[in-house]
Structure formats: structure tokens, C-alpha cells
């Protein structure tokens, strides 16, 4: 049996969980402790630091409508909250919370507020919005929130063994796509899903985001990034619901990652953060560039 330190694929992870009769987060935090030469409680303190910062970013974001330096974005979370105050969301309160928290965090990022890159700054709102909105609504303990965030981290870690989590390398599938998959894992963990259900949630989420390009307008982490975060937070919920019902990804997760890696390689460099194609070269984007130059 592989020692937990050597786990580098999801198949190895699943086998090790079975062999040691442990959850993903238990194996993951033990591995992290061993690797960094600290104790498991110390690992969890670091994770809690990120969790606390995520909460803080949501709070700050919900209370501000200050625009970014470019002036392109920043007031939409306020609009969303006002909208929900007048007309409740079709899918109920929890849905309202998730999309509000996501937009709050993304906007906090673009106005140079303090956020947690998870896994990146552009995709920083997906994991916190799902994790915190759901745990607030269901009364999930802090211990379990930390378990969930460790689980999400383990998913991101194993993906990053194959695909660098950077839009410039593999497109947005590797940033917001992976963030959504990490959220699906966290959510499935929080709702009592087993290892197989967690990994299926990840596979289902990722499969549906393969090929997502990175074409930020004016080269800034604003359009389409900010609004993409709430979309992909909800996307994670769908993946988790299906997995918890026992629906499996016909393509095993490691193979999905292979497909993602290949897709990233085949994607034109013009669609990987260089702002040379897609949304970034639309007529409106071009005039935004011009305006920005006069800033």
C-alpha cells in the first residue's frame, strides 16, 4: 500500500482511504502534517485561518459597492441583494445566500480587498460561497467546515499534480473549473457523502467545465471572472446532489483529469489569459481598453 505521502492520483486516494479506513480529509491532513513537519492540529489551524479570511471577505464584500480601479465592476452584489429583498429567488434562501456570497467575494477581490486564493484569486469566491452559505444554513460545525475545506484542498492538490491551476496554462477550466469541483467535494463531505460520492461529485463537476476558456476583458480579473464565480458555485451544488443520489461519472476522475490536461494543451494560447481572443476582443472590450488607457 502506498504511504499517504505518495498519493498523486484519485485512484490511489480512493484505495488508500479504503485500506486505512479513513476519510479523504483524515488522510490529507496527516499527509500535510508529515510533509510540512507540523502536527495535524497545526495543519487545521492554518486551514481555519483561510476559512476565517473567507468569512471576512464575504462580510466586507456584502457591505460595499465600491467599483474596481478600472470602474468596470463592483456594484453587482448590492444589486443582487436589493433584488432578493424585493423578489425572492425561485430556488429559495440558500440559493440566494450562495450566489450573494460568491458575488460579494469576487467583487471584494477586484476592489483590492482581502480574499483567499482558492485555488486562485480569479476563482476565489466559489469554494467559500458554497461552504459558508451551506454551513450557515444547515448549522454545520466549524470542525466539519474545516474537514470540508481540507477535502477541497486535497482535490485541488491532486488535480494540480497533473494540470497547473492557472488560466495561462490550461484556461479557466483549471481555475474556476477546479474551484467548482473542489466545492462539490466540500459540499458532499459536509452532507455526509462517502469517498466514492465525493470523487464522483468532483468528476461530474469537472467534466461539465472542460474547455472553459480564459479571455479576460482588458486583461483584468473582472469580465467574465466575477460573474462566473456565482454560476460555478451553483454548478457545484448540482454535481454534489447527483453524486449523493448515487449517480456516477461513467468516466473515472483520473481520466477526466487526463482529458482536462489534453484540452488545456489543445486550447489556443490566444484563449489562455492573453486576452487576444474571445470576449477580450469584442468591440465593446476594445472600447473598454481605450477607456482604460486614459485612466
Amino acid at each position, binding site marked *: 500500500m502506498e504511504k499517504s505521502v505518495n498519493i498523486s492520483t484519485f485512484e490511489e486516494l480512493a484505495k488508500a482511504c479504503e485500506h486505512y479506513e479513513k476519510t479523504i480529509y483524515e488522510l490529507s491532513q496527516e499527509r500535510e502534517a508529515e510533509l510540512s513537519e507540523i502536527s495535524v492540529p497545526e495543519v487545521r489551524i492554518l486551514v481555519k485561518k483561510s476559512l476565517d479570511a473567507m468569512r471576512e471577505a464575504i462580510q466586507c464584500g456584502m457591505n460595499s459597492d465600491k467599483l474596481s480601479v478600472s470602474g468596470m465592476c463592483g456594484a453587482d452584489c448590492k444589486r443582487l441583494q436589493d433584488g432578493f429583498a424585493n423578489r425572492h429567488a425561485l430556488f429559495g434562501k440558500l440559493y440566494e445566500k450562495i450566489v450573494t456570497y460568491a458575488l460579494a467575494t469576487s467583487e471584494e477581490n477586484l476592489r483590492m480587498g*482581502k480574499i483567499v486564493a482558492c485555488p486562485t*484569486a480569479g476563482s476565489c469566491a466559489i469554494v467559500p460561497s458554497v461552504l459558508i452559505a451551506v454551513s450557515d444554513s444547515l448549522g454545520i460545525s466549524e470542525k466539519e467546515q474545516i474537514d470540508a475545506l481540507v477535502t477541497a484542498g486535497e482535490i485541488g492538490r491532486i488535480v494540480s499534480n497533473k494540470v497547473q491551476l492557472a488560466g*495561462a496554462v490550461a484556461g479557466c477550466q483549471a481555475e474556476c473549473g477546479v474551484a467548482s469541483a473542489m466545492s462539490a467535494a466540500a459540499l458532499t463531505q459536509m452532507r455526509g457523502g462517502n469517498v466514492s460520492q465525493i470523487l464522483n461529485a468532483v468528476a461530474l463537476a469537472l467534466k461539465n467545465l472542460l474547455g472553459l476558456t480564459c479571455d479576460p476583458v482588458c486583461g483584468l480579473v*473582472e469580465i467574465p471572472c466575477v460573474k462566473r464565480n456565482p454560476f460555478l458555485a451553483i454548478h457545484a451544488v448540482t454535481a454534489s446532489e447527483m453524486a449523493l443520489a448515487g449517480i456516477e461519472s461513467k468516466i473515472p476522475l483520473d481520466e477526466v483529469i487526463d482529458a482536462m490536461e489534453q484540452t488545456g494543451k489543445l486550447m489556443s494560447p490566444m484563449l489562455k489569459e492573453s486576452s487576444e481572443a474571445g470576449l477580450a476582443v469584442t468591440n465593446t472590450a476594445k472600447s473598454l481598453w481605450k477607456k482604460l488607457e486614459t485612466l
Partner: protein
Amino acid sequence: MRQSSIIDIISPIMVGPSSSHTAGAVRLGLLARNLYNGMPSKVTFRLYNSYAKTGKGHGTDKGLLAGFLGLSVDDVRIRNIFDLEISKNFDYSFEYLEDFNRHPNAVDIVIDGVPNLTISGDSIGAGEVVINSIDNFSVKVNGKYNTLLLVYRDIPGMISKVTSKIPVNIASLNCDRNAKGEDASMCIALDGELSQDIIKAIHDLPSIYIVRYIKKLES
């Protein structure tokens, strides 16, 4: 592999909006500050390529200055750094350039003072940075290790003279010679800390001009 840590995946806690263009810029500024370790009379930040083109919108300029003034990547004062007291009493400027022989996110930090020093570095993704040249000597300082940097007259046996004085593990060692082959630089990444006494002892070796001890970055 550094990314193989879950903590790296769910951090850093940073001021947005971009790990390469904001957090990376702060870290480059911090490394330059640690490296210079003195009060300059003026600093010019030369931003290249993507750093020049999208730097304003990403707060790259603010990040570089904030880092140089000692703020860490999660300090919300970065947003208003130009209005803070510490930068009002500080002489700085920015230049925006294009040079496709350079990395997309490259910067020169040109320091006027005693001594003058030009520090060049790149932000290579996910907040990771590298200082790759100092006064045209090529070096490699990434902020992950405490690093000892030396510039010296290139005489035989220098490497062993220096390393014999270092009591901690050496993670890596890079040397470079200038064009004429008279002067050389040595960059030693360390697994531990060096005391002031040891740094002084190395400085006292014959033919050494510059010794810099660059502390690793905390975040």
C-alpha cells in the same frame, strides 16, 4: 513540488485581484526591500509587457511600492498605498515599457542611493516570483529560502572558502561571472538561518565586495 501542499491550494490570504499581478508584485517589492536593506533616495519601478499593460487595473504598481515599503500581501493598506504617509515621504516613480525578450510579468527596480542597485525579477504565476538579476549579475532568489548573495573578485577557491563558513544545509548554489570574467556572483539558498557573525565573517573574506542576506518571505 510545492503545489503538492493542500495549504498552497487554499491560500494565500491576499489582497486582490490577481495572484501574479498583485500578490506577486508585492512579493517582488518585498524581496527587493530585503535585498537592498537600506534607505534609498529614489526608486524607479520599470514594468514590462503584461505588467505594464494591465498593471494599473491589477494594482501592480501599488503592490510593488507596498512591498518595497514592507507591507505584506494581505495588508489592505495596499489599496491606498499612494495616499499613505509612508509613501508620501518616499521618492518613487513608475515607467511602463515593452520588451518581448523579457517575461510577460517582468519588473526592474532601479534604486538610487548608497549604493545604486538595479534589481530585476519576474512574477512567474500563482504568486510565485523570482529575482533573476542584480546589477546585471544573474541570480536566483525566489523568497522561499533565506538566501546569501555575494559579489566578489573571481579568484580560485572562493566557493569552498565561503561554504566552509556556512553551518546550515545549502539548498542550492548558483554562480555567475560578469562579461569580463573578473567579477562573479554567488547565490546560496539555505535551509536555515545565518547569524550576523557568520555574515560578517564571510564579508571579511578577501576580495568580496558585496554580501547580502535576503530573508525568505513569510507569505
